[in-house]
């Protein structure tokens, strides 16, 4: 079952913060976050595992609430390079089979 992402799109000015949410109706083993720029392949950002800690990558971090079957991606002090579509991929078990959400398009303006 495909996870649900919200919001669908967000427009930011440089330096502003944003939160992207990813919710699943099934229990999750892992959540994977990717960013895809127009016409390019999805690029891996981070993976969060059941029982694991919140992760961070530069000023992008994520959390995983296992009880709520949700993950949130936090964009802090956004930069122009953060523009793109962010996808969450969820796996119900450690069989590496991901279901991806429809994506959240982030536009950062100067």
């Amino acid at each position: 079952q495909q996870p649900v992402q919200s919001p669908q799109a967000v427009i930011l000015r440089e330096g502003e913060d944003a939160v992207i949410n990813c919710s699943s109706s099934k229990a999750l083993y892992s959540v994977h976050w990717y960013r895809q720029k127009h016409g390019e392949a999805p690029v891996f950002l981070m993976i969060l595992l059941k029982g694991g800690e919140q992760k961070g990558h530069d000023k992008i971090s994520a959390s995983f609430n296992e009880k709520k079957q949700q993950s949130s991606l936090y964009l802090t002090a956004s930069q122009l390079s953060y523009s793109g579509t962010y996808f969450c991929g969820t796996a119900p078990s450690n069989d590496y089979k991901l279901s991806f959400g429809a994506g959240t398009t982030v536009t950062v303006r100067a």
Partner: protein
Amino acid sequence: EAGVAQSPRYKIIEKRQSVAFWCNPISGHATLYWYQQILGQGPKLLIQFQNNGVVDDSQLPKDRFSAERLKGVDSTLKIQPAKLEDSAVYLCASSLDGAGDQETQYFGPGTRLLVL
């Protein structure tokens, strides 16, 4: 370290024609995936290989799509005959055969298919 390689990058065909895509995963990666990404949507898994065996092909339209990974390294995905709704980007990804952080999937640049 070289990334996932795919070819061709673009392909335009007419409906009912056949087409094939090629993927070479990252060296040492045992698991290979083919995804279909329709414009405006997230990638949808078509087939997953572990070495040269199929792990999951439940979402592969088997009446027209086929895939193989004969020597457990590179792979081909074929569509025969193509339909208009097959227009999409076909992404190949690979991952190490492991658990935890090793299940990270790395994507290739994709093949953009347009069926007219």
